[in-house]
């Protein structure tokens, strides 16, 4: 052995490596290679073969390195299991006993056949079959052809949440898609110079691509102001930390708007051509708060200051008026086709209305609300304007576009629940004021989930008569409103903005079914329990709001099928455990490239494969084989195969130019199915120039073709279509809200009234923290007993990977502050007599959690922080971590749910020193 050598060092060239992808969280995918020796997966490394194309230079995220321990975890469910104890609950040992795959699939298929025999909808009109998965939709990239099974099945309830709506960027998802086709919003980091970051923790939640791009921007000189109650990882690498009071970000942003539009000269601050031509600022408003329209075309009117008359928005108007009072005739279109005709009335513009609206939100007002000094509000606003470079341009792929290198980002919790609309509105307006929306350097969207088509956000830019982009609102008209919901969370009935794409059920009020099951809502059908509930790559008994309640509801489900990797808190309550082949054991081809969450901006598009890398260690099965076999046993094989042929495995197998379709009447093997998908995908990508089957992909890992960078920006498409961004005035929100209020009133539903108040065209600020403070009263407690805010923050090492039971991840996560307990301000802890490592108990009006104190300076004294989601009680390894969880403290409550059906990861709490020993060193 050489000095320094280790025995058996194998030269790189002699190593066997297998290419796969990792998309355990939405920030992926990253590509990696798994080294294999003697049929055993030994090590993981980035796939450097894609470093020139991948936006994170081909590096793989820290979480992916946990996959080998995930594969060889001795606590894995080693074969299908069946519950023997009919009593379900945390306190009842499920008595799981091993059964064969044949028996397990028969058991499940029999239940499903029974449902089909009686009809897939129950007496309430709700699907008898429900399905829940988590991870921001990433489980789809692991579930093989399971989506085809669901398509073949027909209506099933995907509206049971496992944390959706509060652990995502919920308001941004909905309003972002409405305003600029931005389910997720990102700075155009490579060109951006100044970012106001309200709680957005991109260095923990943005994945490799986010970290890589931000690091490049940082050393280039990008300045980021981090506005958040605790100093996150992103705060650490920002130029400045502004410790804001929790849930008051909108107040800070309103203060910025006031500074720019009211306190200083907006003509010098703003991108006037953008405001004139690309927003609804010049639109005239009627006395009822709706646009004043041309009676013939019904198009909204603008005052042409040169022609000195009102004209429709689509006319070429060089100088639309912003300020002043105008005498105009026209019509207003109100709710439910109400129509008001006006003759020669005095009207103002949206701009005027906005200025008047913002007048009250001074920096001093903001300081009183959000605890950020007024001087800081003013300085940040001034810096933002100074960095906006209004008037500058940049050439991208031969096309000259505006360059506006400023952005405003929002984080989780800022974006969720009450105040989310306000924060989203204010930040989108801020960037619009300087013309930084959907242009290089500015604020851009990454993808769509509510608009269609799914893989090209530009194609959904279709015109409305108002000059904005079309949007798939759920109907609120008398005729169109869905008075009898088809899913238990009633998203189509309650949330017009969430639309009705396949993603919409999970983006509706997904926590409400858990509430409605015990507290049936008046005016809606009785919330029946699903006869069969299937849970995949998700642990709602851990990851939900008020998780104890959720676990109790799960325990009441009559038949639960859990795809299970190890025992966890949800499958502990299941009837059948199906151990599916995990990340490094199963086969799937996915789309990569284009623009995707969170900062995956590619100049390429294509496909990547995940495949079994080593000899199997447990009796698991590939999800594709499970789906095929269940489809066969349930008697829907034909529909299932047709769904695959139609694209349910990620790519249509037959088009005009090619046909790789599967025989619908035959149960195909996994490799056969994916071989067809690989061929169709490569054919589609290369227009038939280079067609490859599954073996080629297994060897090469991925296939790419160029994708234009111009596609990153929506502004050119909006301009090309002659459209405007629907900002700042929200006429459609007002109309839908008013109509919805009438529909609900007509249906006798009075428990959604508070939510209806949020449908304002210019959203008025209210003291959002008070909603959480006063919640204590609702459950008979005194708010004064809960003097602290409890928050959570993303853990890059843990988030969404279901890797709480992986000791390697735990070991390295310990190096990142907060992974050992509850973060408490050091000075505050001193006053409470709490020392580093002391056991502490955190109580909220509805729950309790405990952990060890981690004392830091980088947190407000009125706030405590619990990273990630822990406090497991069933999952091996995880249950020994002694880590707290905010999910024990939060509440599922209508009063904490906003109009989009979102709540927030936030609770008011008390802290006390616990008993027992300090945290072991």
């Amino acid at each position: 052995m050489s000095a320094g050598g280790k025995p058996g060092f194998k030269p790189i060239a002699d190593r066997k490596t297998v290419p796969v992808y990792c998309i355990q969280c939405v920030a992926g995918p990253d590509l990696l290679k798994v080294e294999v020796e003697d049929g055993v997966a030994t090590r993981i490394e980035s796939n450097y073969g894609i470093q020139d194309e991948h936006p994170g230079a081909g590096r793989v995220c820290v979480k992916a390195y946990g996959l080998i321990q995930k594969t060889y975890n001795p606590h894995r469910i080693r074969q299908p299991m069946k519950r023997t104890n009919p009593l379900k609950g945390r306190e009842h040992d499920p008595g799981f006993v091993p059964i064969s795959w044949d028996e397990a699939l028969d058991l499940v298929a029999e239940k499903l056949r029974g449902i089909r025999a009686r009809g897939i909808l129950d007496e309430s009109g709700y699907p008898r079959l429900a399905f829940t998965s988590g991870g921001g939709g990433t489980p789809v990239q692991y579930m093989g052809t399971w989506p085809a099974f669901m398509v073949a099945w027909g209506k099933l309830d995907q509206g049971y949440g496992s944390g959706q709506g509060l652990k995502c960027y919920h308001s941004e998802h909905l309003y972002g898609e409405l305003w600029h086709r931005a389910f997720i919003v990102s700075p155009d980091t490579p060109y951006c110079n100044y970012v106001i970051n309200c709680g957005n923790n991109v260095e923990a939640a943005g994945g490799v691509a986010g970290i890589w791009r931000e690091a490049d921007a940082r050393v280039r000189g990008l300045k980021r102001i981090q506005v958040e109650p605790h100093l996150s990882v992103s705060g650490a690498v920002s130029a400045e930390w502004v410790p804001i009071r929790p849930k008051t970000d909108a107040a800070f942003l309103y203060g910025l708007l006031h500074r720019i539009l009211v306190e200083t000269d907006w003509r010098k601050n703003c991108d006037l051509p953008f405001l004139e031509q690309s927003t609804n600022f010049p639109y005239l408003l009627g006395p009822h708060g709706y646009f004043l329209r041309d009676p013939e075309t019904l198009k909204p009117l603008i005052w042409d200051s040169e022609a000195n008359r009102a004209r429709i928005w689509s006319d070429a108007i060089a100088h639309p008026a912003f300020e002043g009072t105008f005498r105009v005739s026209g019509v207003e279109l109100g709710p439910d086709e109400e129509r008001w005709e006006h003759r020669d009335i005095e009207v103002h513009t949206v701009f005027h209305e906005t200025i008047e609206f913002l007048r009250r939100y001074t920096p001093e007002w903001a300081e009183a609300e959000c605890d950020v000094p007024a001087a800081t509000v003013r300085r940040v606003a001034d810096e933002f304007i100074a960095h906006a470079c209004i008037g500058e341009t940049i050439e991208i792929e031969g096309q000259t576009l505006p360059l506006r290198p400023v952005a405003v980002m929002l984080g989780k919790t800022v974006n969720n629940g009450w105040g989310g609309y306000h924060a989203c509105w204010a930040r989108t307006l801020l960037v619009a004021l300087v013309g930084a929306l959907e242009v290089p350097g500015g604020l851009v969207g990454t993808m769509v989930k509510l608009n269609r088509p799914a893989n090209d956000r530009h194609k959904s830019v279709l015109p409305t008569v108002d000059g904005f982009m079309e949007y798939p609102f759920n109907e609120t008209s008398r005729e169109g409103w869905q008075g009898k919901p088809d899913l238990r969370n009633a998203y189509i009935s309650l949330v017009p903005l969430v639309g009705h794409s396949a993603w919409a059920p999970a983006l509706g009020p997904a926590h409400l079914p858990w509430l409605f099951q015990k507290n049936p809502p008046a005016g809606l059908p009785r919330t029946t329990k699903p006869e069969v509930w299937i849970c995949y790559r998700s642990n709602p008994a851990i990851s939900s709001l008020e998780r104890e309640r959720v676990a109790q509801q799960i325990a009441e489900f009559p038949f639960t099928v859990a795809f299970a990797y190890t025992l966890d808190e949800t499958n502990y309550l299941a009837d059948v455990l199906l151990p599916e082949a995990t990340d490094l054991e199963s086969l799937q081809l996915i789309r990569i490239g284009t623009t995707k969450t969170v900062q995956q901006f590619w100049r390429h598009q294509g496909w990547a494969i995940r495949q079994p890398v080593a000899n199997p260690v447990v009796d698991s099965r590939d999800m594709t084989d499970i789906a095929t076999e269940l489809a066969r046993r349930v008697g829907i094989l034909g529909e299932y195969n047709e769904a695959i042929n139609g694209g349910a495995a990620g790519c249509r197998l037959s088009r005009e130019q090619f046909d790789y379709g599967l025989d619908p009447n035959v149960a195909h093997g996994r490799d056969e199915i994916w071989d067809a998908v690989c061929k169709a995908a490569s054919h589609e990508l290369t227009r038939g120039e280079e067609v490859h089957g599954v073996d080629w992909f297994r060897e090469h890992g991925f296939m790419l073709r160029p994708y234009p960078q111009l596609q990153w920006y929506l502004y050119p498409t909006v301009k090309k279509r002659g459209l405007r961004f629907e900002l700042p005035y929200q006429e459609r929100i007002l109309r839908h809200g008013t109509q919805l209020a009438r529909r609900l009133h007509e249906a006798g539903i009075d428990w959604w009234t508070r939510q209806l108040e949020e449908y304002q065209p210019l959203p008025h600020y209210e003291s959002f923290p008070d909603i959480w403070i006063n919640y204590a009263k609702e459950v008979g407690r005194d708010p004064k007993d809960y003097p602290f805010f409890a928050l959570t923050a993303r853990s890059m090492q843990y988030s969404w990977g279901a890797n709480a039971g992986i000791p390697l991840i735990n070991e390295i996560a310990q190096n990142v502050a907060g992974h050992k307990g509850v973060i408490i301000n050091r000075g505050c802890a001193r006053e409470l007599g709490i020392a580093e490592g002391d056991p502490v108990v955190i109580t909220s009006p509805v729950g309790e959690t405990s952990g060890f104190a981690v004392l830091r300076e980088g947190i407000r004294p009125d706030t405590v922080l619990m990273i990630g989601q822990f406090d497991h009680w069933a999952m091996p390894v995880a249950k020994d971590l002694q880590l707290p969880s905010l999910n024990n403290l939060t509440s599922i409550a209508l009063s904490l749910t906003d109009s989009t059906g979102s709540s927030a990861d936030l609770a008011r709490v008390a802290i006390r020193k616990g008993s027992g020993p300090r945290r072991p060193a």
Partner: protein
Amino acid sequence: MNAPNKTPRWGMVVDLNRCVGCQTCTIACKHANDTPPGVQWRRVLDIEHGTFPNVQREFLLVGCQHCANPSCVPVCPSGATRQRADGFVTMDYDLCIGCASCAEACPYQARTLVHDQRWYFGVATPQERQVEHPDRIGVAQKCTFCVERVDDGLAHGKVPGLDLNYTPACAAACVARAIRFGDFNDPDSEVNRLLAGTPSFQMHAELGNDPQIKYLYQVPAIPGRDLNGDAIDDALADPSNPLTGPHQPWWDYRAAMNFMLGGMSSGLMFLAWLTHQFFGLPQDAFVRLTTAAGAVMAVGLFFVFLKIGRKARFLNVLLRPQSSWMTRETYFVAIIFPALAVNLLVPQAWLPAVIGLGGLGFLYCQAKILHASKGVPAWRAPLMPWLLTATGLLEGSGLYALAHAVAPAALPYGSAAATLGAFATLATGVLWLRYRLGAKAAGIEPLARREIDRISSLVSGLGHAVPLLGFLTLAATSAVAAPVAFVTGAAAIAGGLFWKYRILTRAGFLQSHAMPKLPRRGSGARAAPYRAGYPPVLR
């Protein structure tokens, strides 16, 4: 910039403005190097400076710095730790005896020893079985800069640092491109280009190791921040501060036994020879005294033997006399014990000098072993060799007095011996006070200083004042009072043993990590400048 040089000098540049503390490097290293649970050759600290609301949080990558002047190499008694011409500080697990001298000598907390095979889930997984390294049990280990990958690359004409498959795993894996690896002797290397444009610091440059990880801390136009020295010192009093060095875990009571018993016995050998040579101690009494001292020394050495990780290889301790004080100590052992044996069986006139001077040599070697532990500020203090030597002589004097009190006829004792004892006590007392008062200036950090302060009154009072009084009394009286000799001897021994035990097992905190310059992220320098007074305020 360095002149072109054919021999590369491999090193790293870490950009503190890029690092986000995600630990991808940590985990990539664990994969590439198959390290067991709890062992992290590479890791990133998560640090705070300041108090709310003026706080800065930083991430500091740490691990073996592959120093140009590595303090771990000369202390290694077996030659297992070496430095290659191209800079890699390497480990040969098959030579290492597991004495942990290198770990104590490293001021960067880079080394560790694992004595038992450990598994992540308690039981070995197939993967752990596949990649286990039994050769690393009981020996020192640390970051290798992935030397095999680099050598593999060089053998295939690749450029380590640029070709990621042949770059240290942490640098290749870094998702922020914060870690770069390259040749400092190549003026055109990426690492040198990065250093050329931006100021950098070396961690603990003042210690003289010339570490080869260089930290970039500023972006163009915005200087990093300096830290107030007192604030740093205060922060290091907090054991939960990630910068604060933990207590060294390797040298426990067993190592302390050798310093205690070895110091006492070797001091006695030297004193016995002095008294024999110059003040008339008879040969037979000399034999009795030194034989007893030899027995005490043997017990101490046996405890050291118990401590080393690879006992079967203990003879490898002899392989590095050119630099290792542990090797040299062993050579003195090899002289002392045969001399003692021969002198016991067939006394020779010249042997007492061999034994006495051998004892002194042993004592000095032992003092230098502790002093060479550069990773432990309380041990590497400049006065440490003299303090340990003087203490050994004091303890030897004490042991002599004590032995006389127990067997006065067999072991005659006179004022000369007492005078020597008084001198040794005086010297030890003064050195201890200077050690204690100069601790902060010598770089000893708060947690260790707290321990030194805690024991100091007992050491000075019981260990120095009482023996001094006793030795002076014994020197002044013609008839030695056995009780006085007993108390004097016992106090001298107790004082010496006490401080050595506590300084080894309670004040042995490892050198803290340091971030002398704070990065300031996001200068805004490339953006439009902030225009004071713009936009103008209306009204």
